[in-house]
């Protein structure tokens, strides 16, 4: 187990390096640059700005400088928001995305898994069809439709929740529901599929033959294995959810990570793009590692070496 963890952590280093390199050259290769505006910046000022941020150096020098500063987790100031460090921007936006994403993920597990189990044990009944129909709708309705509909209904008609802004517990409800819906639906479908497969297996039949109650069979024996696909899905899903969602953040004016990630690319805000990409990559790898560890606990057949 320890060797496994050490090896995986060490493997992350070359992977991150490859991602950093690719991201660095991709963002530099994109047409345009960070200091463009509808109102032209005078050439002397632009040259001074380029000098200030070291953009007048040869590309390989910039690349090496970027690698060494990335290793120290210091990406410098954002170009778009010059009074803020990339670190600060991430540090301030991350807790918001963690909160929004955390609730959304929790909600989708708490609702999605029971729906999936219910559908699986009642396979091909009306209940199954209804549950999967709802799940299909949840996957299919995009959040840029769902969000405004929820605002119209719950904010502008029923006045239950504020229509936007991240202020007070009430403001969390609509963005969390909007973000969670697609995950609820997907997790329900994964759970159903996983459970169906496990319920057909020999050890389930053995459990039933022993005369165990259906509840014990489903929840104690089948669920642990049936939920494996969900677990492996949750790793990357959690990373995605923590990096924020530009759609949900824009509709509800949530100060999370998603808008920075997307807009930084549009603004050619090199430092912010690279900082966010590397952070996302590290987060994704860390969560995948956690998923692998969770597997050993859920499925005794899996051994980490």
């Amino acid at each position: 187990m320890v060797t496994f963890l050490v090896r995986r952590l060490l493997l992350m280093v070359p992977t991150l390096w490859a991602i950093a390199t690719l991201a660095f050259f991709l963002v530099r290769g994109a047409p345009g640059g960070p200091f463009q505006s509808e109102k032209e910046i005078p050439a002397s000022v632009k040259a001074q700005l380029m000098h200030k941020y070291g953009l007048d150096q040869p590309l390989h020098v910039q690349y090496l400088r970027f690698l060494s500063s990335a290793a120290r987790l210091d990406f410098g100031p954002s170009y778009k928001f010059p009074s803020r460090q990339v670190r600060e921007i991430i540090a301030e936006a991350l807790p918001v995305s963690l909160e929004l994403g955390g609730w959304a993920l929790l909600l989708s597990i708490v609702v999605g898994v029971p729906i999936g189990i219910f559908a699986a044990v009642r396979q091909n009944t009306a209940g199954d069809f209804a549950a999967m129909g709802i799940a299909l709708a949840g996957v299919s309705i995009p959040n840029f439709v769902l969000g405004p509909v929820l605002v119209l209904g719950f904010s502008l008609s029923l006045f239950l929740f504020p229509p936007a802004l991240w202020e007070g517990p009430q403001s969390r409800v609509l963005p969390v529901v909007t973000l969670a819906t697609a995950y609820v639906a997907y997790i329900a479908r994964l759970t159903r599929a996983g459970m169906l497969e496990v319920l057909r297996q020999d050890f389930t039949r053995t459990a039933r033959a022993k005369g165990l109650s259906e509840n014990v069979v489903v929840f104690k024996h089948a669920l642990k294995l049936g939920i494996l696909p969900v677990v492996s899905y949750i790793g990357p899903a959690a990373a995605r959810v923590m990096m924020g969602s530009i759609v949900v953040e824009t509709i509800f004016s949530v100060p999370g990570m998603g808008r920075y990630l997307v807009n930084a690319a549009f603004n050619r805000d090199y430092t912010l793009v690279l900082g966010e990409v590397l952070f996302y990559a590290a987060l994704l790898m860390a969560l995948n590692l956690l998923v692998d560890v969770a597997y050993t606990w859920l499925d005794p057949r899996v051994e980490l070496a």
Partner: protein
Amino acid sequence: MTRAHRAPRRRIQLSLALLLALVAGCAPASPPAARTAASEARYFGDVTPPADDVLRFNLGAEPEIYDPSFAAGQPDGRVCRILFEGLTREDPQTLAPRPGQAYRWEVSPDGLTYTFHLRPGIRWSDGTPVTADDFRWSWLRVLKPENAARYSGLLAPIRNAVAYNQREIPDSNAVGIVARDDSTLIVTLGEPTAYFLYLTQFYTYLPVPRQAIARHGDRWTRPGNIVSNGAFTLRQWRQNNRFEFAKNPRYWDAAHVRLAGMVAYPIDDLNTSTNLYKAGVIDWNPSGYVPSQFIPYMRDYRDFRHGSYQGVYYYSINVTRPPLDNVWVRRALNLAVDRDAIANDLLKGSREPWGNMTPTGYPGYEHPPGYRYDPAKARECLAKAGYPDGRGFRKISILFNTSEDHRRIAEAIQAMWKNTLHIQVELTNQEWGSFMGAVTGLQYDVARRSWIGDYLDPNTFLSCWITGDGNNRSGWSSRRYDGLIRAAAREVDPARRFGILREAEALLLEDGPTLPVYHYSTNELVKPYVRGIYQTALDIHPLTYVWIDRDWRSREAAHGPAAAAGPERERVAGGPAGEAGAADRSR
């Protein structure tokens, strides 16, 4: 001050009103609340004044930086104007220069020397006196080459400012800014600049606190560190979330400041902003944040205001690429565009058709004749260029940055050119960074562009077309035009100066690389209980004397809405409303 919803009481009242509206089967455009039997006044959403003297509004996008010396975008400027005050400050209605930190000034007869006298006893929010040298230091900070201030060009009229900024003169003492004593600032200009007092109220000219910058460096604008000299101080800032301002008790006119504070939310989504306004969370939804497709339905609401905005949406033509190097081709393209159809039909009258390069709103300036739709003359011009009926004309391309409105306009113009001139036109859209790269590098045939004035003078629209100007971006160069613009800069007599500028604009339209399409308008929503926010030509809103009127209903019942709301210019008669695309102005 932190609650998003103010009063549950109001919510119940509102929901009842809305339920009734829903039961009655009303469409979304129906008046949601506040339709009282006594008056037929219709307002968009909640009109209950807040319990506290706090103005809540949408700031626009998240400011990039609100250090006045380096601020660039409109949201940046909004924050700077709340926190700081310049030598002069805008009249809330006309934007004309009024005494600010300087209570009087003298201009020498040749128009080159301005002597500003600072108000006695003015102080920074930390108690330090504001001195003439603070202004000198702040302006030199903008000009200092190492600081790379984007808007340093606005200080160009000051003698030797450009030379110092471009390292031609190393000594900052050569720049025409002298603090004679603590309360007298003498500014010497290179050329008489008719609009200089408008410049001194622009945010690049705002004073910054030397003491706080020395202590905190780049972090001096953070709450807790920041020191300001305006009517408000910064209490809280959370990125992408909120700015909270508190009244500055040390402001020289604090006795007349009626707001206890303000909360500004950076909301970049138009629908979100309008929803928050409707729900009564924000009291002011500024121009640019009402979705353009709503505007035709908004006109009947009393809290909706529209008016002219100093901006022009135009196409720029790359004159370095044949056949667009031919002036007759450019005239043909201009004459073949039906601006009325675009503004009135396509954009549902939300913008004003416009065939000139300078907008309206300069008293005394008479526009040269602008372009009007004339298909016959357009075909004639194209024939003169050597392409009768479009024969032999290569396919040209219209470039625009990705946006639904830009696409619709480009499609309309494509069809007009095809039908009138029988030429082939293709559309190219690019995301912002690539688009800017292509336009700056002259890698286009015809490109969508827009220009928003910095100060109230036609010069801000015309001077960018001189040879080699960074905003020209069309390859066009005319010695006569350059000469006219320079002559206007030297002219002291206002009428003669406008005459020269008029000639320049006529030349630009006749020979130039530009195809104006429409005139921008402001469209904003202001709650009826908010007093002191006026529609202005530059969409600049001094908020110092704004107040919350809790008795607005009785006042309006007594005098009618127009009288209670302020001067008539809040509603510009017949002026079609348009929308300055948020994308244009947040960049």
